């Protein structure tokens, strides 16, 4: 038994089987969720490379799988990301029934999760791009909604993901060949620009970002949210992999200010656009752009503390985005038009859904006592010590998002004459309550989670 077999091949096989039974939505969602949770638990407790004891049977848990001359390697340092990815997937799959996600969401989502894990595991890491592209293509059918042809957002997503791959592979080939001799700096610079362009297409860096809110608007919010979250997580880790893999790239002093500037520009543009937003679904898209920008800023800090904070922030960030997407989906059952003007007084008819959405949004903003607050505080401290100007710009961007949250709050309070009623179903109430509680617990007692995860985090090679 090898870790790649368990974390990549098994979910892929399961995804194919579940795809055949996709009409049984509830059973499929529960099975995928339980399997994902099981995989997250294995990643949490079982050292890779050790012996997996199942009663009297002892299985050597190998770290590699060879396929057609190339290898997939999952090592102990990858356990943290594996646990996060599969835990997140479990939450999304469980909530898919309440969210009324398309029936192919769970099987295709599981396949996408496995392919993204494959992208993180493939060696040489230059080939990760191919698997990310594969995952992106798999998502397209999921994004189409009832009676609508592919809109401009989905087409742009399709095009940008497609353009990114050649850029990343070609740049990777040039950089890989240049590893031995770093004397041709012009060539290295050209390759770095092509590489940056590829990642810019993937991560929706300004000015390639308009597809993100458009995709949110054109697709089911739960499906689109899942794709954006998983893809962002995978790509941020791949960026760190690239920086770790190319020593000269990691040692290039100019890289970090560029990454920081790009991240800050993403936060500012996302925040300003969000402030003037009129639609809750599109707002989600801007939140994702801001989160990606903050991740790039954290990577640019060039130290273990910022990277630890980034890795830790994946948990609250993905949880809050999942709650936000679930709230949007539940809300859309009664309010299919998500324009602010159509949501007047909606808080009183769907208090749990809107309450959870607002808590998730404020958590993503780094509001005190909520889950993202500790990691945001750490990031702001780090950034302030490096560049106060960047810090000010970052506050402008986050200020824009605060304004957007205030406008959303004002819109959903709206009609004061309406009566308070709870129209959410029991299953939805449980999910919202648990999700919001988790956001508070992670914010109030971050040390509990950090201490539990510190062992796993200490194995991440880039942090040491």
């Amino acid at each position: 038994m090898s870790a790649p077999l368990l974390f990549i091949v098994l979910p892929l096989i399961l995804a194919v089987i579940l795809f055949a039974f996709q009409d049984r939505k509830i059973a499929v969602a529960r099975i995928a969720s339980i399997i994902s949770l099981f995989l997250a638990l294995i990643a949490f407790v079982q050292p890779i490379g050790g012996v997996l004891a199942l009663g009297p049977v002892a299985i050597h848990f190998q770290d590699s799988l060879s396929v057609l001359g190339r290898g997939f390697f999952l090592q102990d340092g990858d356990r943290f990301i594996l646990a996060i990815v599969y835990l997140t997937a479990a939450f999304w799959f469980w909530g898919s029934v309440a969210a009324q996600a398309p029936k192919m969401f769970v099987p295709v989502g599981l396949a996408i999760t496995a392919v993204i894990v494959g992208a993180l595991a493939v060696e040489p890491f230059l080939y990760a791009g191919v698997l990310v592209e594969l995952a992106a293509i798999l998502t397209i059918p999921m994004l189409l909604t009832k009676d609508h042809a592919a809109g401009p957002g989905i087409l742009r997503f399709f095009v940008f993901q497609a353009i990114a791959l050649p850029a990343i592979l070609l740049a990777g080939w040039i950089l890989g060949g240049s590893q031995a001799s770093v004397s041709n700096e012009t060539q290295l610079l050209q390759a770095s620009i092509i590489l940056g362009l590829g990642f810019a297409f993937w991560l929706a860096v300004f000015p390639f970002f308009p597809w993100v809110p458009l995709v949110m608007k054109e697709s089911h919010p739960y499906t689109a949210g899942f794709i954006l979250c998983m893809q962002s997580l995978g790509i941020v880790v791949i960026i760190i992999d690239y920086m770790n893999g190319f020593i000269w790239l990691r040692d290039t002093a100019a890289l970090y200010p560029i990454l920081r500037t790009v991240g800050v520009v993403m936060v500012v543009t996302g925040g300003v656009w969000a402030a003037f937003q009129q639609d809750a679904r599109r707002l989600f898209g801007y939140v994702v752009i801001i989160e990606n920008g903050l991740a790039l800023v954290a990577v640019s800090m060039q130290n273990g503390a910022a990277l630890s904070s980034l890795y830790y922030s994946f948990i609250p960030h993905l949880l809050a985005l999942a709650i936000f997407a679930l709230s949007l989906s539940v809300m859309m059952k009664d309010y299919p038009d998500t324009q602010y003007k159509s949501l007047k007084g909606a808080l009183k008819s769907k208090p749990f859904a809107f309450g959870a959405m607002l808590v998730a949004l404020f958590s993503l903003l780094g509001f005190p006592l909520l889950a993202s607050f500790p990691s945001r505080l750490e990031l702001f401290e780090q950034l302030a010590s490096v560049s106060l100007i960047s810090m000010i710009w970052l506050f402008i961007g986050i200020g824009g998002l605060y304004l957007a949250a205030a406008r959303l709050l004002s819109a959903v309070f709206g009609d004061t004459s309406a009566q308070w009623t709870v129209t959410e179903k029991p299953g939805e109430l449980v999910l919202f309550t648990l999700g919001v509680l988790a956001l508070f617990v992670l914010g109030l007692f971050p040390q509990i989670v950090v201490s539990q995860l510190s062992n796993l985090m200490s194995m991440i090679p880039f942090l040491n």
Partner: protein
Amino acid sequence: MMEHWYNLLPLILLMAAGVSLLAFDDWRLMLAGVAVTYFGAFLLIVQAAPAGIALIKLVTGLMASALLFVSFKDQKSEQPALAWSSLIFKVTALALVWLVMMLVAGSFQQIFPLNYETISGALIALTGGLLVLGTTKEPAKVTMGILVLYSGFDILYTPLESSILINGLLSLITMLIALVGMYISTRHESEYEE
């Protein structure tokens, strides 16, 4: 400059395919352009990479074209009136871009250990695909634009990358792009649950 003048044939094929995709709206002509692109790409790849891999790329590309053909064949072919001004503008734009590409192709030889014609062919297909993507909102044409773009990328990358896994995955991506293109071009009802 040109090492083998017989390589003018694939270059001309790639250019003709680019014109058919960018300048015309008849899907039969455009699909023929995609198929011709793959044939032109094969003629260039086979000179620099193992024949087996080049053949796989050709077969995959032709299968992708066939998939799109099957999905479009029941559709009524629209024959919009040929706007000469648009045609001249698009062909001129393509000609100018390709001229620039052929001028700069030589400098790419410092980066990629390939002959001038291979690099020129790759750049012709890449820029042709990009121009198609930049000028259309039609899902079918977007799909064909991406396929041509990937074909250009294949011309450049296949001789550089010998890995069977990666070349296999790239071929799989080509097929999936065609499948997704077929899906988004023809699908009107969704999997949405009420």
